[in-house]
């Protein structure tokens, strides 16, 4: 009887590991094809005046809460973006520090009685300001809404252009980010949202809010996150793009049609992972209304973000992400195996549900089972070791394929030493780091089950990143 149970469990976990890795490898193959097509196009299009002369005006919404240390540099950098027609709307979400005062001084803001329509819900606006120095800069000072979503909604209400991008106040954009991110909207008229690859800024050198030199972080946690981001963006997103099933447009940088944002009701202030919830809701609403739409994704690195370098910050981030994933899926449960849901309902949602949301639960049960079974002699230690090795080698394969995709698309880490460092991280992440992330995601899973609420989070900045 026990032998049968052991066999069944072994096969279940074998099937799970092979299943998850086949799914990832499938995404990988689709991503290779998509990226190849994109890169071949990009090589010709980069300097083509067709792209530089056709543009859609963009509003950049920058929610800011207690960003006093970096807000001025960030906004100055945003104002220097290479794009012919854009505005910056900073939303001070009732910061307790001097974020607003610094903005007022640096940009010569003056109160301006802006009258606008509240088209998506948000906490009341206290005042609006306009810059005497930059005609395309406005600042909204509002009552604290407790989350980025509420601040983003205030920005959506007040911005004026047909495309809206919500960017993190501490995000570092490439100078040509907007030009690149707008391309899915030019290529397809039914594009309602588009995202681009986010990269890790730790270890890079900055000057005046822009990236001056790309580098890898010395901190091991940040280094492993470089690999994770490559995995997440280069095949996690690009693999879903041609299937019409991109489920996440990163909160750090994503472009949306303003009309779509308003139609779906903007960001949900109660959502923990407001970026994923919004995109999942767009899928749901569009499919419920049977409207053609497209959510695009480009592999170009458009935004660089600061990764947490301490276990505490990283744990908090991962717990929150997982909590947000569960919430986003359940808030839009109409999509789960819905006959009208297409690839979203039948491929993406099951993938996120089984492999992403339930993944840490299954992996933890599996680990406990194998250790217990080995301790009690139900299986031999070498046998348990084989399963452990299989899990590690499959994980390493995914990381190495992500490094390959980076090299294949827009390689940023050009030095041989950097490549070696990435391979080292791909190997070492399997010993401790992956297990920790499983634990944090498990905590996030239970937080979601217990319906715990999250608020604005601040992550301690990396010492290696600072404005030069």
């Amino acid at each position, binding site marked *: 009887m026990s*032998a049968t149970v052991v*066999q069944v469990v072994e096969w279940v976990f074998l099937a799970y590991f092979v299943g998850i890795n086949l799914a990832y490898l499938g995404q990988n193959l689709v991503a290779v094809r998509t990226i190849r097509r994109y890169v071949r*196009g990009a090589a010709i299009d980069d300097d083509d005046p067709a792209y530089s002369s056709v543009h859609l005006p963009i509003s950049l919404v920058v929610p800011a809460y207690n960003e006093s240390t970096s807000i001025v540099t960030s906004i100055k950098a945003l104002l220097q973006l290479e794009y012919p027609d854009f505005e910056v709307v900073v939303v001070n979400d009732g910061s307790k520090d001097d974020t607003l005062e610094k903005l007022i001084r640096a940009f010569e803001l*003056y109160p301006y009685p802006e009258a606008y329509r509240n088209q998506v819900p948000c906490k009341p606006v206290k005042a609006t300001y306009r810059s005497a120095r930059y005609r395309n800069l406005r600042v909204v000072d509002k009552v604290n809404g407790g989350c980025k979503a509420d601040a983003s909604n205030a920005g959506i209400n007040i911005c004026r252009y047909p495309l809206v991008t919500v960017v993190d106040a501490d995000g570092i954009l490439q100078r040509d980010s907007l030009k690149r991110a707008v391309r899915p909207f030019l*290529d397809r008229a039914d594009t309602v949202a588009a995202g681009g690859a986010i990269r890790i800024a730790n270890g890079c050198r900055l000057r005046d809010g822009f990236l001056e030199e790309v580098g890898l972080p010395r901190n091991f946690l940040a280094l492993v996150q470089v690999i994770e981001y490559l995995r997440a963006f280069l095949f996690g997103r690009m693999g879903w793009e041609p299937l019409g099933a991109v489920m996440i447009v990163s909160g750090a940088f994503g472009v949306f049609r303003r009309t779509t944002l308003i139609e779906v009701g903007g960001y949900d202030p109660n959502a923990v992972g407001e970026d994923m919830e919004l995109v999942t809701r767009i899928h749901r609403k569009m499919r419920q209304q049977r409207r053609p739409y497209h959510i695009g994704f480009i592999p170009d690195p458009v935004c660089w973000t600061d990764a947490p370098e301490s276990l505490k910050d990283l744990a908090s981030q991962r717990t929150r992400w997982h909590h947000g994933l569960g919430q986003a899926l359940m808030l839009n449960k109409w999509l789960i195996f819905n006959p009208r849901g297409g690839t979203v309902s039948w491929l993406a949602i099951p993938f996120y549900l089984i492999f992403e949301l339930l993944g840490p639960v299954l992996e933890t049960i599996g680990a406990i089972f194998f250790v217990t079974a080995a301790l009690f002699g139900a299986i031999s230690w070498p*046998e348990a070791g084989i399963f452990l090795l299989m899990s590690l080698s499959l994980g390493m394969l995914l990381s*190495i394929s992500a490094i390959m995709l980076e090299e294949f698309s827009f390689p940023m880490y050009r030095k041989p030493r950097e*490549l070696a460092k990435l391979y080292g991280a791909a190997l070492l992440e399997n010993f401790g780091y992956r297990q920790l992330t499983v634990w944090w995601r498990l905590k996030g899973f239970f937080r979601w089950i217990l319906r715990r609420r999250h608020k604005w989070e601040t992550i301690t900045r990396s010492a290696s990143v600072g404005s030069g």
Partner: protein
Amino acid sequence: MPDLAFASASSAAVSAAIWATVASLSASLLLLLYTLELRFRRRQGERHRARVMERWRSIIAAAVTGAEGGALPTAASHPLPRAERAEFLKLWNLTRNMVEGAAAERLIELAGRLGVPEAARGDARQKRSAARLVGIRTLGHLRDLPSFALVQAAIDDDNPLISITAAEALIEIDPARAVDALIPRVASRRDWPRTHVFRILQKAGSTLVGEPLYRAIRTAADTDAAHLLQFAELAEFDVRDAICAEILASREEPELIAAALKAASGYSQMPRLDELVQHPAWYIRMQAARFIGRMGRAEDVGRLEKLLADSEWWVRYRAARALVRLPRLDRAEIERIRERQQDPYARDILGQAIVEAGSRQ
């Protein structure tokens, strides 16, 4: 519990796990080697591109300036291999985009001598959108008349970038025929950015655009006509006035009336202004306020004051902006108008418009 060794009943699962491990480790190794090869090939490619650019940059520059006695190279003296074509076309199109007149003619001649028109026609027929885009753009820059039909077919492409690039190329090839082909499409292609369409039609010139636009608006359905009216300012004044007057006198569709109000340029076309400032559709009232602001007559203050208390924000806003921009009203007079408003919304919106006008000065 029994001890299960490799040869036990579970050995099949263990064997599968061993095979999965071996396969993934082997695949990892292969991917690592492939990554290194990619890096090597990329370096080679970058060097090749630099060499190609260096070679053609000097030839293109000589063609632009007419250096070396104006003698242009031929395919025999300077063959353009397929491997160099993409880089050459990138450079040629960029340069062609910047020059006109004799320099443009010499660039076109250079391309002709190197067999570029044939290659561009091939590219324009390709499925791959990037190659098609370059092909169509090149044909436009070459003003390649034999390709008119080929480029015209591309303006109906689903991809907005391909179609609008084709529209621009058509205007370069033969503006008169292009305008006739384009204007009916402008009504239906709402995915074309308005500013870009405007710029393309502007290249053709108001003499060519006016009549086809007038014809298209007269025969189009109401919503299409309203869309086309956005480009009315490209037509000559008399044509534009005739279009607007005809619509305002004879059509009832609110969106069309609003579009005509937006395009109208004189009171001669405005027999129904008092009716329009009270129209049930708010956007007509808003366009009426804008129209009055454009005309700038002091006797319209009363009409604008009524609109300041409108239930719709945009109507109030446009009326307030029109008021503060009226040429014969000074700041003190506008403040007096503000103070006498009974409606708090009217006072607020006029306050905003005063601040806005102040910040502009």
